[in-house]
């Protein structure tokens, strides 16, 4: 009878963040739905109570069903025959439970059958699902795609597709192709408009997660003869119409429960979503931002699982006459794992709140004109969401890999065997820093905000917040880290004219920004929940050293040395 919500007070801590009141009030349009829907909240307390109760349901399903099934799913894996992908049998049990619990379309408006949850509590559910089984998050979490339909599809399409998602039909986003991975501008799947105005798709997609989904969002070339992103449009394909077959599924290292498909489109009927030519430059960008937040949540969930497995083992395993957790070399590893876990979770939910704020305003702006103050606030949070999403995705996926590595290390030789969950965690973690844009690409997205000062000015805002006297010392350390970061940015900026130099330093700068921001966020967490204090101390000690290491490298590095790194 495990419950991944009630056994993890960090979730409730983040759920009760002060900004939530505003988020919920805006999301619920002053609780207008209460008059129409018997499950809509009447006020803020009512809404929070509902989130709390529903997250407890999610926690129960994750603890009792999804986590229990994770090993079987990993062993059985998905399969492919007769042009279709098939889930492992326990995956079907997981899907059935989440459907019956009404956890599909969590963030969709009630008029389409959704729960109208803000992004923040929805991401909490994703956090728990990932802790239970990272591969299952890929199937369940693809309900994210509905958000893109909601934002860009026409009313008729929304009415036809969104209720189906809320009822539990699964989705996929068909973007990548054999020659278009990170570089989506090269997508070749051909969309042809017939004489009657309808569209058909022809070609191949590869590496499509849950590629045999009921409803697909497809990126395809609608403008014949074009070569770049401006010739791509977004389509929705309904499996009920047929025309897309699964040629094969990948034999993967991890997340084996989620079938990764190669799809063949043969005159597959589809519908255009939104306007032509905006497929990549607008819609896929929005889709990817949502998906990246999902991967950040997946990473945090895996980190949680890794930490708990390691902690449990270290308490149980006896060597030299005592539990190994009593040795400094072991408990340091565990403490740093916990620090990284808490830090990445703080960043995740800060980012989720930013996304909530700007997205809700954007949605409201379709109903009425925003006031100048609201417009200003929307822009403010939109920029922060844009800056924090790659940071959260990039850094928490790296942390989750580090934690998975350390989890095995704590298990010693046993961790290398297939007997413990840690080896699955290690394999599942590996993809997080690769898909939805590698860490290297997250750095490309984030570096802009390093040089335009988005991160620095947010750090200054954190710094302006008062802290209890006992935290003054840590605050001073964080202020010094902030200064070291600002100085490093200046130094790199000064050398920008050397080709490749700024890009070469980008990851270091983004990490410095990220680690410092995480420290600030944890300091803020401690003002509300002192339980995080040890974690704050451990993380800031770790982050301080990392920031100093990067600062030192940047300080001592001469752009003239760049040549030594270049391939022959």
């Amino acid at each position, binding site marked *: 009878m495990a419950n991944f919500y009630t056994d993890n007070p960090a979730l409730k801590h983040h759920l009760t963040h002060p900004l939530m009141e505003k988020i919920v009030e805006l999301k619920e349009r002053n609780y207008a739905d209460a008059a129409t829907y*018997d*499950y809509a909240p009447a006020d803020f307390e009512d809404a929070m109570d509902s989130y709390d109760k*529903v997250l407890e*349901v999610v926690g*129960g399903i994750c603890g009792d069903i999804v986590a229990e099934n994770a090993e079987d799913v990993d062993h059985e894996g998905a399969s492919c025959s007769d042009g279709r992908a098939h889930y492992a049998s326990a995956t079907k049990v997981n899907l059935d439970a989440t459907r*019956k*619990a009404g956890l599909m379309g969590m963030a969709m408006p009630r008029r389409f059958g959704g*729960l109208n949850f803000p992004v923040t509590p929805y991401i909490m559910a994703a956090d728990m699902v990932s802790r239970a089984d990272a591969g299952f998050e890929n199937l369940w979490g693809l309900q994210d795609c509905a958000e893109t339909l909601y934002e860009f599809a026409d009313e008729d399409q929304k009415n036809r597709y969104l209720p189906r998602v809320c009822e539990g039909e699964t989705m996929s986003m068909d973007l990548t192709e054999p020659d278009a991975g990170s570089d989506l501008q090269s997508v070749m799947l051909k969309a042809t408009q017939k004489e009657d105005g309808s569209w058909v798709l022809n070609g191949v997609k590869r590496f499509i997660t849950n590629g045999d989904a009921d409803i697909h969002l497809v990126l395809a070339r609608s403008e014949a003869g074009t070569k770049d992103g401006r010739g791509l449009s977004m389509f929705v394909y309904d499996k009920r119409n047929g025309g897309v077959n699964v040629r094969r599924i990948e034999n993967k290292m991890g997340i084996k429960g989620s079938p990764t498909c190669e799809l063949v489109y043969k005159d597959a009927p589809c519908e255009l979503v939104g306007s032509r030519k905006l497929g990549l430059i607008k819609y896929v960008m929005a889709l990817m931002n949502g998906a990246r937040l999902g991967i950040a949540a997946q990473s945090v969930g895996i980190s949680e699982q890794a930490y708990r497995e390691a902690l449990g083992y270290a308490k149980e395993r006896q060597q030299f006459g005592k539990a190994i957790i009593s040795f400094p070399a072991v408990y340091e590893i565990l403490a740093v794992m916990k620090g990284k876990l808490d830090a990445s979770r703080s960043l995740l939910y800060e980012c989720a709140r930013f996304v909530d704020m700007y997205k809700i305003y954007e949605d409201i702006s379709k109903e009425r004109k925003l006031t100048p103050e609201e417009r200003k606030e929307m822009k403010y949070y939109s920029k922060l969401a844009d800056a924090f999403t790659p940071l959260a995705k990039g850094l928490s996926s790296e942390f989750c890999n580090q934690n998975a590595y350390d989890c095995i290390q704590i298990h010693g030789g046993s961790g290398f065997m297939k007997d413990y969950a840690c080896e699955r965690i290690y394999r599942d973690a590996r993809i997080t820093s690769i898909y939805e844009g590698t860490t290297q690409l997250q750095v490309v997205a984030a570096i802009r905000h390093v040089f335009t000062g988005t991160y620095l000015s947010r750090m200054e805002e954190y710094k302006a917040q008062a802290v209890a006297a006992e935290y003054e010392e840590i605050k001073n350390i964080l202020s010094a880290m902030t200064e070291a970061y600002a100085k490093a940015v200046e130094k790199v900026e000064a050398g920008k004219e050397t080709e490749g130099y700024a890009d070469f330093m980008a990851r270091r700068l983004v990490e410095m920004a990220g680690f410092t921001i995480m420290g600030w966020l944890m300091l803020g967490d401690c003002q509300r929940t002192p339980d995080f204090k040890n974690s704050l101390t451990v993380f800031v000690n770790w982050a301080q050293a990392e920031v100093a290491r990067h600062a030192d490298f940047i300080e001592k590095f001469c752009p003239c040395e760049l040549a030594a790194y270049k391939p022959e």
Partner: protein
Amino acid sequence: MSFNIIVLAKQVPDTRNVGKDAMKEDGTINRAALPAIFNPEDLNALEQALQIKDRFPGTKVTLLTMGPPRAAEIVREGLYRGADGGIVLSDRAFAGADTLATSYALATAAKKIGDFDIIIGGRQAIDGDTAQVGPQIAEKLGLPQVTYAEEITDIKDGKAIVTRRIECGVETVSCPLPLVVTVNGSAAPCRPRNAKALMKYKRAASLTEVAGDQAKIDYIEARPYLKVQEWNAAYVDADLQQCGLAGSPTKVKGIENVVFTAKDARNVPATDEELEGLIKELIANHTIG
């Protein structure tokens, strides 16, 4: 085609997670130390009822539970999972009931509900482990019963097709409606709470539960679907002589605190002498006889 189904459910102390203070000095159960839960096999029964509702839209699932007013929690748990309503059968006169008095009270309530096709409950409750209440209700109502059911696979031509778990296998029987079914723990687990139903019914309560809080009473009165019905002995026309302690022939002679001392299994050779020795030993230490 649709049906009216009564699901019998009991709120029980969670005897699966027994701590050291689970029993009082006198050997009776310390209810305060054990969380009150939905009897596990009654959840299996609820799932069977909900599956019938899935298959036959319009089917109405009503929970019936006997217990103190806080047993309304059982009705709420049912509502969260898809039941249509529920009744708490609650009266001081029902207190101290053994299985005979319990089945009498529940049977009178079922008669009061009147129009039902299926009464379904768990095989047994984890606090008493008697498995008697379901069959007794069937007898009192003069209905056929199917026990140890694993799945009600279909209902057609006025008959329920039920798969039973029996020793060494399964048996499929057909039984005319109305009938009483008791469900085995090996049946499909109950579905989770549904998010929308949970948000809709989280304030469902009986009037006893909200007594004294006018705001809550008004809230519930304005939304009849939130009102958990409470029936007492008089309402179901129960003969008080057959209720509660008065109606219970079971008398507890004594309670002994037994501490298991043997840790490992012991192998006894299959010879007449060895078996005779074992039986004598078991009689001597009061394990049997």
